[in-house]
């Protein structure tokens, strides 16, 4: 074919490929000696083909290289003839032709260096970012955060001006922070209307828009003419704008990012192409500002809460201080009162140590405060006195109020009669914490009592002697042995005799009552049959009952009581005597005894078994409001009773003293026109016998 050229042979193809390959190709013989290299290999090894051929490939290894051990693919480093170290990728085809091996090498030194440079740059950026973040986060004060942010951005980006523009809820905004080089005019504090930054722009930025404008005047920047004028006024050539978004949490609206403001970098000296790194750095710093803002707001909220709580605490402290001051005043007043009282007041704890005492206590005992406070009763009073009072202390610490009297030689050298009351201090669950000890000087009262006793004793004696004479004289006259009297004379004699009897009775009762009340009487208590006591009283009153046509009846089982026989018979006799006096003729007065539980109100812990005696009549009855007062001296339902019925007005008062002296109780129940019942209780013997055996 004319003009047709002959196709190159395959050999020519291979040779061209061998010659122009960018990969270095070396052919090695069985011993690893280079037998052929292409031009790329000459470049890679840094030596001429002549120098390379015949050299063992192992000699090029940076370290000793045994090509026989090399895997088919991999990376190695070797040293060029001129000494430079090269990193290469290789591919080894063993025996690609009989006795020959093919080694293909690619220089990857540049790639590695580039990768390292990239890595370093990335590392530097990360470090820079961390450093700035740390600076921003170091403060929780908003103004400080913003100031740090603009200063750092300006420093890192080498920008001429960096601003923070805050967007308000109504769309207006203001430049609230600025870092600017001295040669440019600051624009801090400038306010912008809503039109400058309308809603659609705000939406774009809320979605994360970043505006990197290399040249504000360039058409692709798309800035409005007015904005370009503004930029010119402030000599802005290029600008980078990133949004500051704040994570918005609300209970009423959906969560999301809220556009708080913009972080803006200006380049004024010249236009500027903003790199990806710069944009990324700006965005990340803006994000950090957003986080810091959230934290700042949290802090503000927290500070608000702290301030609120602090105010509350101040209020509480103030109120507490006032309460404490009031308490101190109250304590002081109490102390003044306690010190002013002419009685001894002390508080003793469970361990019998003094915890409080008033001044009189110190004066009377002649002891200083340290000699009393925190001291045991034994130390303050001495062994002998403590022995006397310890039984009362034990009673108080059991939770019972106790009063006793002691004659003591006090600091003034005189023996004083003291009345001492221990009042237990009970707290929750009636646990005894200690007791209050109140001591008053009753020496004067005692002296008056002694005088009264003596007076009554003398008066009664002085009355009894002439009464004996009058009484006896009348009785003698009544016998008629000394002569007869007219009928009227006998009537007068009878009146004189009856009234003398009454007078005798009154004198006896006055003396009885006085003696019982003064505590001079010792009850001679013994085991008594309740029924026998009642029968004895009935026997004594039999004559009187018969005179009045009254029946006396005794009922009830035979209980045993622990009592002074004579005094209980006296009590029963008195009650029966009253019942007879106030009963209509042909009625019955009933005496009974029963084992009915009667709570003893002043003793909480002990429950003693009591026998209740009752004397019931069918008399006129007693008004309800007088059921209590009839047990007082000279108290009768009708003041004319004493004259009509011959009573002294002291009988029930004596009865009450006797029964209370036995630890019992006396009372009356009555129904007008139907009669009255007088009750009294006495301890049942069983209980006391077991006590005596203890």
């Amino acid at each position, binding site marked *: 074919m004319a003009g047709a050229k002959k196709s190159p042979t395959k050999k020519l193809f291979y040779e061209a490929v061998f010659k122009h390959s960018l990969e270095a190709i070396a052919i090695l013989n069985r011993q690893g000696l280079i037998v052929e290299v292409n031009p790329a290999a000459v470049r890679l090894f840094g030596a001429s083909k002549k120098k390379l051929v015949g050299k063992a490939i192992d000699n090029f290894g940076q370290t000793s290289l045994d090509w026989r051990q090399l895997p088919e693919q991999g990376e190695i480093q070797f040293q060029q003839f001129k000494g430079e170290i090269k990193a290469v990728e290789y591919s080894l085809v063993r025996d690609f032709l009989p006795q020959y091996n093919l080694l293909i090498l690619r220089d990857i030194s540049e790639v590695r260096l580039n990768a390292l440079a990239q890595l370093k740059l990335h590392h530097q950026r990360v470090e820079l970012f961390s450093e700035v973040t740390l600076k921003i986060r170091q403060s929780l004060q908003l103004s400080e955060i913003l100031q740090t942010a603009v200063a750092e951005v300006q420093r890192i980006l080498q920008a001429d001006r960096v601003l923070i523009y805050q967007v308000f809820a109504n769309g207006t905004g203001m430049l609230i922070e600025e870092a600017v080089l001295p040669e440019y005019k600051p624009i801090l504090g400038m306010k912008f209307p809503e039109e400058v930054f309308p809603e659609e722009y705000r939406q774009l930025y809320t979605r994360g828009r970043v505006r990197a404008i290399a040249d504000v005047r360039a058409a692709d920047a798309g800035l409005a003419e007015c904005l370009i004028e503004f930029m010119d006024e402030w000599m802005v050539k290029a600008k980078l704008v990133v949004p500051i978004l704040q994570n918005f949490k609300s209970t009423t609206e959906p969560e999301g990012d809220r556009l708080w403001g913009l972080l803006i970098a200006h380049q004024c000296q010249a236009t500027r192409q903003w790199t990806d790194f710069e944009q990324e750095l700006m965005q990340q710093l803006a994000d950090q500002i957003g986080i810091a803002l959230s934290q700042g707001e949290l802090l503000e909220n927290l500070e608000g809460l702290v301030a609120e709580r602090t105010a509350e605490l101040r209020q509480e402290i103030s109120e507490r201080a006032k309460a404490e001051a009031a308490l101190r005043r109250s304590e002081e007043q109490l102390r003044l009162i306690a010190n002013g009282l002419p009685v001894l007041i002390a508080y003793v704890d469970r361990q019998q140590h003094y915890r409080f005492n008033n001044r009189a206590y110190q004066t009377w005992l002649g002891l200083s405060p340290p000699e009393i406070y925190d001291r045991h009763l034994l130390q303050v009073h001495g062994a002998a006195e403590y022995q006397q009072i310890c039984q009362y202390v034990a009673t108080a610490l059991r939770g019972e109020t106790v009063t006793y009297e002691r004659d003591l030689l006090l600091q003034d050298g005189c023996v004083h009669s003291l009345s001492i009351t221990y009042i237990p201090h009970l707290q929750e669950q009636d646990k005894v914490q200690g007791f209050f000890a109140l001591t008053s000087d009753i020496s004067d009262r005692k002296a008056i009592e002694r005088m009264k006793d003596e007076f009554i*004793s003398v008066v*009664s*004696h002085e009355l*009894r*002697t*002439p*009464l*004996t*004479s009058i*009484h*006896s*004289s009348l*009785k*003698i006259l*009544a*016998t008629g*042995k*000394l002569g007869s009297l007219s009928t009227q004379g006998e009537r007068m004699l009878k009146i004189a005799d009856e009234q003398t009897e009454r007078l*005798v009775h009154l*004198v006896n009762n006055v*003396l009885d009552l006085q*003696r019982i009340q003064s505590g*001079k*009487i*010792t009850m*001679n208590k013994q085991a008594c049959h309740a029924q026998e006591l009642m029968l004895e009283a009935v026997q004594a009153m039999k004559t009187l009952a018969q005179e009045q046509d009254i029946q006396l009846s005794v009922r009830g089982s035979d209980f045993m009581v622990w009592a002074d026989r*004579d005094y209980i018979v006296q009590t029963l006799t008195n009650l029966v005597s009253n019942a007879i006096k106030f009963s209509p003729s042909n009625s019955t007065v009933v005496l009974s005894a029963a084992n009915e539980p009667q709570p003893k109100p002043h003793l909480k812990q002990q429950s003693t078994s009591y026998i209740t005696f009752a004397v019931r009549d069918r008399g006129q009855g007693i008004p309800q409001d007088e059921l209590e007062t009839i047990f007082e001296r000279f108290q009768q339902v009708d003041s004319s009773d004493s004259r009509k019925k011959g009573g002294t007005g002291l009988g029930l008062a004596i009865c009450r003293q006797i029964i209370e002296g036995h630890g019992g109780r006396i009372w009356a129940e009555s129904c007008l026109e139907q009669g009255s019942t007088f009750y009294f209780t006495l301890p049942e013997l069983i209980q006391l016998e077991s006590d005596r055996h203890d």
Partner: protein
Amino acid sequence: MTEKNILLIDDEETIQEVVQVGIGIEAGWQVAIASSGWEGINLAQNQQPDAILLDVMMPDMDGIDTLSQLKNNDKTSTIPVIFLTAKAQAEEKNQFQSLGVVDVITKPFNSMTLASKIAKILDWEM
């Protein structure tokens, strides 16, 4: 009825009289009167009465001292003594009995029943 001689030692003249008349009417006994302790001791020694009624409260020598003298005197120590007193109560009665009196009769008493009381105390037949 056996006639008895009673000695009353009491400084009150009215008491002396009503006791003397009362016992005389009731029992027909003789009652000698002494107005003081000393006089009573002398009379007791000389007359050796069957019983002595002794008032406790008297001027100069009271009943307790008089009793002591009577009990310390061989001639009078065995004569039963009964106290007459306006003070006596149960516990004082025990106290007096421990001093050596047989019993105590409390004022005011009825002189017309006094002889019966004495006879009962001393277990005399009337």
